[in-house]
């Protein structure tokens, strides 16, 4: 008779194998990294540019330039760009972030020679036509109106603004900010930012010599630096007001967001603090989930997370709870943060979290694209793959005492920014 009450034997994860990228610096100073692996005849090409210095008077320049990159060049209209990309079954994506903005192409290898010229044109010769700008402004303003009725969206931007003030990290635009975007500023910003010396190319997929040659020829030639872009950033002026309540009469739920600015990935304590974060709210079995969802049933989900940017990091807790239990949920969150600082974690819970985190790291390396993602995490923090050796070593060796010490050093509930959008 099969005994179903015993857990089958299991093994801890001992090693993570990462694919080492190839690297060349093109003649125009653009750094190219490539990851070659996999069965499928396809590639993902990412062109990552460091954001220019944030201008509080024109907060949306970076966003607008990036988002409008596929809206026309001197030789192609927005419609022609879309036709070419779509015809070859490719996907052209633009994304802006706190520190970097990027253009991504997903393409089958057999179509790459047809799509590369389009991407090249977009990053070297975009013109931001007035008509497209007017459409962009109007549609973004409409989208913003919808987002502003979502409590979690409002909570996130209120929190970021409080913690990081008037910077890219605290970006919190209103409709008027969109209205004041001007074409001349976009052209100027584009010319400064989208230069090869400010670009890192990251290519992942099945890459043979021909594909590599196609890419280096495309981006290594006829694309030159004109000057040195200003990629410094202004210092933060955090808000003095820790508690921010945005009342939404009639809300069924309140969005809660709490947390603080903290260390980023370059700090030696970062991996260990990620262990603390995981215990608190970083996985399904976390203390916040176990208490506030699985015991009290106050919410569909609650979690905590850490973000690492170039000039700061953030640690935050986020949830949406029934409006009637907003106060009760806040109390339980405070209780869980304080338990981390006063009680030693049991050996059982700590070993579970360690195994979970190592398994999760292994599982996050699903394919060649994920190896490139792992590389980006460290490379843009000025680190290298040794980081992951340190990370796994720290997770294996961290003790209950370490968790207690780090919690006391980095988590002070009274100093957290606290945002509630809904009803208290």
């Amino acid at each position, binding site marked *: 008779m099969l005994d179903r009450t015993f857990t089958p034997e299991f093994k801890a994860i001992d090693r993570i194998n990462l694919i080492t990228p190839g690297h060349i610096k093109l003649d125009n100073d653009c750094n190219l990294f490539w990851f070659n692996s996999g069965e499928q005849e396809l590639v993902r090409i990412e062109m990552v540019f460091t954001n220019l210095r944030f201008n509080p008077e024109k907060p949306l320049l970076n966003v607008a330039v990036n988002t409008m990159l596929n809206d026309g060049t001197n030789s192609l209209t927005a419609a022609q760009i879309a036709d070419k990309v779509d015809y070859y079954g490719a996907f052209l994506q633009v994304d802006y972030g706190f520190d970097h903005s990027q253009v991504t192409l997903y393409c089958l290898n057999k179509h790459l020679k047809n799509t590369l010229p389009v991407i090249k044109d977009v990053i070297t010769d975009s013109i931001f036509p007035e008509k497209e700008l007017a459409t962009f402004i109007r549609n973004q303003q409409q989208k913003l109106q919808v987002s502003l009725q979502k409590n979690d969206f409002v909570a996130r931007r209120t929190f970021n603004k409080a913690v990081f003030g008037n910077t890219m990290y605290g970006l919190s635009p209103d409709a008027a900010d969109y209205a004041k975007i001007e074409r001349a500023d976009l052209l100027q910003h584009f010319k400064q930012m989208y230069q090869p010396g400010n670009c890192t190319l990251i290519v992942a997929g099945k890459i043979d010599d021909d594909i590599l040659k196609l890419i280096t020829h495309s981006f290594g030639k006829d694309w030159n630096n004109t000057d040195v872009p200003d990629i410094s950033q202004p210092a933060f002026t955090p808000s003095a007001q820790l508690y921010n309540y945005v009342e939404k009469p009639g809300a069924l739920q309140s969005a809660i967001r709490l947390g603080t600015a903290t260390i980023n990935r370059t700090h030696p304590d970062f991996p260990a603090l990620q262990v603390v974060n995981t215990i608190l709210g970083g996985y399904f079995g976390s203390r916040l989930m176990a208490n506030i969802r699985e015991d009290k049933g106050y*919410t569909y989900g609650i979690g905590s997370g850490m973000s690492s940017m170039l000039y700061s990091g953030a640690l935050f807790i986020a949830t949406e709870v029934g409006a009637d239990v907003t106060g009760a949920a806040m109390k339980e969150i405070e209780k869980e943060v304080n338990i981390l600082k006063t009680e030693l974690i049991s050996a059982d819970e700590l070993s579970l979290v360690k195994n979970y985190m190592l398994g999760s790291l292994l599982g996050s390396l*699903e394919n060649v694209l994920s190896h490139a993602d792992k590389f980006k995490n460290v490379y843009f923090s000025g680190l290298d793959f040794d980081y992951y050796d340190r990370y796994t070593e720290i997770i294996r060796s961290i003790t209950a005492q370490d968790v207690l010490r780090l919690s006391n050093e980095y988590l002070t509930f009274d100093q957290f920014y606290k945002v509630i959008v809904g009803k208290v």
Partner: protein
Amino acid sequence: MVKFNRFTLSNGLRVIVHEDITTPMAVLNILYDVGARDEDPKQTGFAHLFEHLMFGGSVNIPNYDEPLQRVGGENNAFTSNDITNYYITLPAVNIETAFWLESDRMLSLAFSEKSLEVQRNVVIEEFKQRYLNQPYGDVWLNLRPLAYKAHPYRWATIGKEISHIEDARIGDVKAFFAKHYNPQNAIMVVGGDVTTAQVKKLAEKWFGPIPAGNKYNRDLPQEPEQLAARRQTVTAKVPLNALYIAFHMPARNDEHYHAVDLLSDLLSRGNSSRLYRTLVKDKQLFSEIHAYTTESLDAGVFVVDGKPVAGVSIETAEAAIWEELDKLKNEPVGIDELTKVKNKTESTMAFSEMSLLDKAMNLAYFELLGDAELFNLEAAQYLAITPLQIQHQSQDIFKKENSSTLVYLAE
């Protein structure tokens, strides 16, 4: 091309193995052939609530998540109107833990009252978070009963109303489990760094002893043909007016399904698509517009939805959509344009084959459709579609009398 092996246990459990040695991970995916369409009209939302209860402990294992996390695994599940799908990813060396956990909850749940009470609350909060406390969150709560009058697709997976969830009792939970959660109604896919021999051995060991249970025979009221246009206008706390038009369309297994799917791509996939190009960019009538299908196992709906630009009337916006739909009915689509959506489908499939979990879920789903091998034949079916087929489907579907129009007006 996704290779797999297949066998069936004596209790009726279908097992598919996809060996993929390029990853150190493994996936165990179980699809139960039950969804919101199988619910009692007085107890809607039950299949989904039940999915939550599957994590509340099983007969021999008090806590489902903890042992899985301890071996470095993760899991989740989703419920649709058609199916309930559970999946685990974990380091392949620890695959047996996944068999242990999944087989025990197929054998029997713990049926804990505390778990039911908590998960009722959690699901009610989910109801509020996703459907009630969001602008336009209740669209499907309105659109489904407008488009369907007889078929159980007339309610959403979350349920018709919160009271149905509040009223769920442990006896209902036990009956639902006995009816749907047995080996005969399930398809298991194991993928990743595993061998078929190993999976066979583990499947026999852990799932073999589970009694076959009763076969559920689905006999759902089918939707009668719609004969007149339907319309509903809702005044809601939303910032912008919005328009939703739903058309009845063929089921997933119908021979015409692929043509209809490409039709939605022609209309709204990518910035070169017709609705985006014409109505957002050229005519500037909408700030956003989409077309998609519900991809349902019984006859589904094809939806066009959009938000008109401020100042554009609903009548103008609606007429502009119909003008685009009429073009598809009146003129065959050009070869280049058709090739475009086929190329897009081809590359989407190639990229999705990079994900082990996607492959496992797809194999289970296609096995439910009749044969996992259909997953590999799918691309060819899209490639074979002709302009004439697209035109015929447009003519069949885009008819006023086949439409249900839902209008949201900003308060």
